[in-house]
């Protein structure tokens, strides 16, 4: 993992069109401002992982499970 040290107000540039700026620091909380093209989705990681896991659980379908819906 690349590790960079930045001060408040400084940024990191990723590729041509993604900028991450350190907006503020308050104790152990760091505020980041992110500029990215609209097609790039930005998520808090733990939330995104939760959705990934829920999707994996939801996709474990079998005919029998779907039959539940038909009341078979």
């Amino acid at each position, binding site marked *: 993992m690349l590790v960079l040290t930045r001060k408040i107000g400084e940024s990191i540039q990723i590729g041509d069109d993604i900028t991450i700026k350190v907006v503020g620091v308050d104790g152990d909380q760091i505020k980041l401002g992110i500029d990215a093209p*609209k*097609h790039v*989705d930005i*998520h*808090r990681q733990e*939330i*995104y992982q*939760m*959705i*990934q*896991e*829920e*999707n*994996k*659980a*939801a*996709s474990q*379908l*079998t*005919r029998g*499970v*779907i039959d*539940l*819906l*038909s*009341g*078979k």
Partner: protein
Amino acid sequence: MKIDTLYFGEINIDQEKVITFENGLPGFQDEQEYTLLNLPDNQAFQILQSVHTRELAFVLTVPYFTYQDYEFDLDQGTVSQLEIEKPEDVTVYSIVTLHDSLKNSTLNLQAPVVINVKNNRGKQVVLTDTNYKTKHPLQPESEGQAHASTHAENR
């Protein structure tokens, strides 16, 4: 086009029934093309079936059946990704996580599936700053629960 489906076997669908999820779904980024199939015996649910992978399918339902007050703001990024022009062009579904009975099954209200029916572009939107979670009861009312659980146990 012919596609192989989990529930209906091999079927034919029109190319125009293909819904494109440009970024896939979280956890399934490589799968970008799906189609919506109706269940013959239950119109409350639909199957979002991958066009390319037989085993990949999700059960969807319209969340408003159960959660009439469900609402969220669609972010500008999604509006432009899906090229949404009018609110009426948008259909919102929730993914159902089915368990051993309908009573134990849940709805993911935190990450709705949004489809622009005008151009068949879809996206699973991850809501932020929301009280909605990934596991809301599919049948929040106790009467419905009792019925469904009896039903499931009798199988």
